[in-house]
């Protein structure tokens, strides 16, 4: 086992354990904190995969903004700090079985076929991925339309959020 493998193992375990705690913790607030831990673990795995900018996005957007939004949303709801009621309903066994089935199935298929058969486009693997991303985002031969549509989507979300939360 190389150093990279052991690092991956450490972060994978951190991610999985905290993800498990997210869904089993009774206190929603604590669940949100565990979610931050999960997101952090995923960011670390991105780093191990050489996807540095993605790791930065993960930290800035997910940990920095979305987790905060979730915590706000939790604090907006009543009866959070003294939770009552069960967190699982009758269907949890079915859900767990489905999840396990999905997981085992994917593992088996991955082991049979390996990763994708087509060759993925090569990227330089250095920190320079950022500039390649920048180029792809505004190139008419790549992702310029999704890029602009993303801003329209953000605008619609903004208008919607203001409309919903504003008093009349």
């Amino acid at each position: 086992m190389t150093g990279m493998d052991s690092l991956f193992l450490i972060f994978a375990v951190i991610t999985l354990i905290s993800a498990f705690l997210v869904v089993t913790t009774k206190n929603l607030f604590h669940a949100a904190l565990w979610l931050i831990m999960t997101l952090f673990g995923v960011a670390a795995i991105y780093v191990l995969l050489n996807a540095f900018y993605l790791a930065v996005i993960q930290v800035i957007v997910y940990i920095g903004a979305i987790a905060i939004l979730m915590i706000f949303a939790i604090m907006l709801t009543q009866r959070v700090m003294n939770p009552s009621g069960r967190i699982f309903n009758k269907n949890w066994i079915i859900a767990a079985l489905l999840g396990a089935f999905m997981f085992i199935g994917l593992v088996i298929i991955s082991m049979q076929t390996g990763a994708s058969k087509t060759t993925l486009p090569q990227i330089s693997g250095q920190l320079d991925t950022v500039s390649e991303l920048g180029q792809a985002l505004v190139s008419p031969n790549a992702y310029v339309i999704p890029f602009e549509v993303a801003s329209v989507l953000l605008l619609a979300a903004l208008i919607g959020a203001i409309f919903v939360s504003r008093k009349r």
Partner: protein
Amino acid sequence: MAIEFLPIAILFVLAIALAVFIVFLGSIFGPKRYINTKMMPYESGMTPIGPGTRRMNVRFYLIAVLFILFDIEVIFFLPWAVVFRSLGLFALIEMLVFIGILLVGYVYAWKKGALEWE
């Protein structure tokens, strides 16, 4: 390479270790007196007003949503800014369109009073 992230990893480990160490020291050497005033939630030194678990105002949510949206905008800016010199006019126009669209949202938020507290 991922090895360039080693300093960050060291920083994390040190930070966690230091925090654990300080709490540990406190629990060993600190005097343990449980008086009423001491068990109160801390609110900048004054006597707390109301319970600490009350509902927050919905405005915080709106601020957080606005923050996310502009945060994502920044995420798109950075890769573009890195290569913008070599891409020329078209890339500039593309980014201006992108900013323009979100600026519309900003004007909307402003005019509808979403940025005001009361």
